[in-house]
């Protein structure tokens, strides 16, 4: 009987010990880290009617030793009138050795990145949908001749349902004209829905564009 009592005491003691363990809240904040650095962004185009006909434009950020932007430069995008071009985005981080291809990482992180392309000037407000590469709120300037350029994204991510990315595109040109192409990369972590609004911009640059 003494053995039995000891056994019961052990069981009760164990139960009381564990019952005293209560649920508590654990919270952790991961320290800030820098996003990927983009020092150069290029758009490379191939004419669908003539693969030998290629063109490109490049935007470059020059940084000091503390990664502060000291100056920028860009090249002009020149496209033939009434043509269709396949476009590809190519982005680099030249602060790393070897140079890091950021656009490859954007492809890996495609489910929360979205590229936008906005020609200006425009004579009418662009139709905005979750498949539109155009930027809502772009000012309409009816008095100015528009840049005759339309853009369609051609790649899809692995969200369910899939959403466009914009690493590859088709640019369709109209009559000769000139203006700017605004090129924006939106970072939309757990918020990408095909529209411009969610998230923040990783890149927002302009290329002088000439259709000739």
């Amino acid at each position, binding site marked *: 009987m003494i053995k039995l009592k000891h056994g019961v005491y052990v*069981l009760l003691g164990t139960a009381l010990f564990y019952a005293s363990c209560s649920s508590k809240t654990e919270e952790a904040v991961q320290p800030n880290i820098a996003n990927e650095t983009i020092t150069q962004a290029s758009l490379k185009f191939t004419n669908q009617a003539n693969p030998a006909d290629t063109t490109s434009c490049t935007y470059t950020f020059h940084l000091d030793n503390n990664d502060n932007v000291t100056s920028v430069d860009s090249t002009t995008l020149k496209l033939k009138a009434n043509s269709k071009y396949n476009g590809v985005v190519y982005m680099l981080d030249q602060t790393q050795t070897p140079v890091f291809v950021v656009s490859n990482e954007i492809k890996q992180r495609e489910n929360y990145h979205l590229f936008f392309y906005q020609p200006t000037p425009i004579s009418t407000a662009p139709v905005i949908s979750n498949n539109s590469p155009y930027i809502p709120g772009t000012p309409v300037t009816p008095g100015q001749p528009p840049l005759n350029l339309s853009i369609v994204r051609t790649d899809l991510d692995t969200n369910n349902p899939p959403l466009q990315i914009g690493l590859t595109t088709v640019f369709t040109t109209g009559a000769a004209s000139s203006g700017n192409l605004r090129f924006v990369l939106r970072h939309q972590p757990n918020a990408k829905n095909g529209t411009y609004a969610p998230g923040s911009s990783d890149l927002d640059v302009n290329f002088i564009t000439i259709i000739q």
Partner: protein
Amino acid sequence: MHPARQTWTLISSLLFNNYTNLSDMKKLIITLAVILATFSAFTAKAQVQPGSYWSIFGGVSVPAGEFAKSFYGNFLDGTIDNKAGFAKTGYTVGLDGAWYIHKTNWAIAATVSYQDQGQLSANDAHTLAAGYQDAFGTDLGQATSHGRYQNLNVLVGPQYSFVFSKLTVDVRANVGIVKSFSTPEMDIVVTDGGIPHPFAQLSSTASAFAYGGSADLRYKLSKKLGIVLKENYVASPGIAITNTDRVNNAGRLDTKQPISIFQTTLGLNFGF
């Protein structure tokens, strides 16, 4: 191959494998016990008829496999572990019983047990925060967790007993259900450009299929009273987990949490 040689090959492979952790050793013990029981049941006559009993028990419950992992993985190399359970060693209490088929050593046995497998630690929350921050490429990752793994197992199955005077060895196979009362809730906020994007893995109260096996030693203190030391293994393919506000397919996403536990218990058994 001769049956005896086949048997030896099986046992030697079990014995001489490179067992690297406690779970593997426990699996080995239970496997050998089941093999022993199976062979003995068909080759030996029972010396003494065992009597039906019920028991009350308590002990330690140790998570294993994915359930025990505290690992996030890496987004870019595709090693994110969606099933890591972050479960901890906890306790179990319960009731057990076996009802013997007339004049045999075979019984129908049942167990009802309650388990607590702990909650996420501060380190686990850091692991989640860093993992989601990397997976979504954001400036900031924040993870908050509360709630514990608490569940009930209801298992039934056949039991075979070897009776040696006051000592009885039982081996058992089980099937049944695991009913979750709660699982740790994980509230995540990834912030980029000063904009917070929250989402959560909710606590689950789902039920799921469970299976396992056990081996125990029962020692008679008197005609109707004894003590029992038991090693029990329970596994479930997984209880359903609900996630909220998951807009994009990125980062850890657990929709079904597998459970795997080893329990070492001590109890009192009462004959009837």
